[in-house]
């Protein structure tokens, strides 16, 4: 066969797919039937394992209030809160995928709750929590005879523990009232806690509050979890209390522009765990965006670096198009230590599967530097 014909012949050959066997057909139909009873994970990113997406959803509207400068990291109040917490280590301190939670674990900015529930010979235990007003996180350890080294046998086959979570719901209550939008601010995420702790999962929920200082100091959440192969709903009541009292909230006058865009960092909130950044990106050549222009704007992400050049891990965010601009509210994991400033660099998203940003992807002239107030 001539070399020039091989490509054409290969394309034709692709039309003849093998006939599906009855066995596979039956298993597929069974799988389709099962899907109706399962909820997909909430919109967001994959964490700690596998792929990670840099940017976040553009679907939901996130309108933020204007924050004001609050206290800095090492305020006396915060120092007290640190001292009041147990100094023993937490699995949080070993997490590699989230520098904010890891730092909180290392600095003791977590609370020990030790709630456990059992059903037959399966025990679920929530040990530690972190709550900074922007997000909550908790550690769940599973003990079961059919779970070994993070591999769970559901009776039909073995799967990783993370894949054995069929359903999880977290609802919050504050002074008797429901924190109704708790589940609407980026959703609940979970992932493995690392090879050293194969039977532990980390769960995390971003909160709906524009300013973490507005979030209640304490609230109670009910969490229900279903495990694959077990016809039982495990239910917990987990108390969350802020494990850190201080945060930085600033409204920087940080703007930049190039031939096509104006960029502004409108608000920055920083806790030792989470950094929240509100940005506006405006397309200068239109009052109202066409679909194509809107799509182009939604394909711009931001990379955030601390004063040591460490890039902050992107968590999630929501954006809304307003006229000729897109307003984006994003959360990042704070890097350890206190940064004097943050550098925010918009970039063109080229590869949804890649976390690295090449130099050529950054939009020229739009980088801005945000000075953070020094600690007391």
């Amino acid at each position, binding site marked *: 066969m001539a070399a020039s014909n*091989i490509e054409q012949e290969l394309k034709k050959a*692709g039309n003849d*797919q*093998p006939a599906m066997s009855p066995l596979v057909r039956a298993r597929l139909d*069974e799988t389709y039937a099962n899907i109706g009873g399962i909820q997909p994970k909430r*919109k967001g990113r*994959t964490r700690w394992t596998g792929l990670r*997406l840099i940017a976040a959803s553009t679907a939901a509207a996130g309108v933020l209030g204007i924050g004001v400068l609050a206290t800095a990291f090492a305020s006396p109040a915060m120092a007290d809160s640190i001292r009041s917490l147990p100094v023993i280590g937490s699995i949080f301190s070993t997490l590699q995928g989230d520098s904010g939670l890891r730092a909180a674990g290392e600095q003791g900015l977590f609370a020990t709750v030790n709630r456990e529930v059992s059903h037959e010979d399966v025990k679920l235990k929530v040990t530690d929590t972190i709550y900074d007003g922007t997000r909550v996180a908790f550690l769940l350890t599973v003990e079961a005879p059919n779970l070994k080294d993070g591999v769970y046998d559901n009776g039909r086959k073995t799967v990783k523990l993370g894949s054995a979570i069929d359903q999880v719901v977290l609802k919050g209550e504050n002074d008797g009232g429901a924190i109704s939008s708790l589940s609407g601010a980026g959703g609940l995420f979970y992932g493995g806690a690392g090879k050293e702790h194969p039977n532990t999962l980390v769960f995390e929920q971003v909160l709906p509050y524009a300013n973490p200082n507005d979030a209640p100091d304490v609230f109670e959440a009910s969490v229900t979890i279903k495990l694959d192969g077990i016809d039982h709903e495990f239910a917990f009541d987990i108390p969350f209390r802020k494990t850190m009292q201080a945060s930085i909230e600033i409204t920087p006058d940080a703007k930049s522009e190039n031939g096509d865009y104006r960029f502004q960092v409108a608000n920055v909130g920083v806790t030792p765990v989470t950094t929240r950044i509100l940005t506006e990106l405006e397309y200068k050549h239109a009052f109202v965006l066409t679909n194509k222009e809107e799509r182009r704007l939604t394909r711009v992400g931001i990379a955030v670096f601390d004063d040591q050049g460490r890039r902050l891990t992107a968590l999630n965010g929501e954006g809304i198009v307003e006229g000729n601009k897109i307003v984006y509210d994003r959360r990042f994991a704070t890097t350890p230590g206190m940064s004097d400033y943050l550098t925010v660099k918009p970039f063109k998203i080229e590869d949804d599967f890649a976390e690295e940003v090449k130099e050529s992807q950054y939009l020229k002239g739009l980088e801005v530097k945000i000075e953070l107030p020094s600690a007391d």
Partner: protein
Amino acid sequence: MSMTKLAAKAVNGEADAFLDLVKQLENSLYAMAKSILRKDEDVADALQETIMKAYKSVTSLREPKFFKTWMFRILINECHNLIAQRARADVVADVPTTDVAQADDYAKVDLREAVDRLEDPQRIAVILHYYEDLPIRQVALALDISESAAKMRLLRARDTLQRSLSTFREGKMNLGSI
């Protein structure tokens, strides 16, 4: 409804849209899994696991247009995971059954058989690019390799196919002349 529109609905958590999409892709996914795993029990396991994993995390898919690429990526990983779990002998011991071809299909069958005999990385690249019509960039995405590496695999695959088909035909001619 187009695959991208359906994918957008699936990303928003609509189970029906997800199912419609997977049903559209099921033959392609089956062909890929079959090509890697051969054994139907394994193929069924890989497909089931792939679909469940994809469903549970479909809302994290940022670009609906990459749904197909994303599904193949999950499937290929699942197939390789299964292979790693099974004893090698167990996997290769099962010779795939081949449908009986009509006379004028021989050329296609020859080519498909030659593709089946390619090494895994080349064969998967060929299936994604030529059978599934994925652009090079998405082949690279699905396989988590660079575009140049994807091109190289396809180039080597074509070279191998060229050689194997020539050899095969010469053999038939020799037989015919006896």
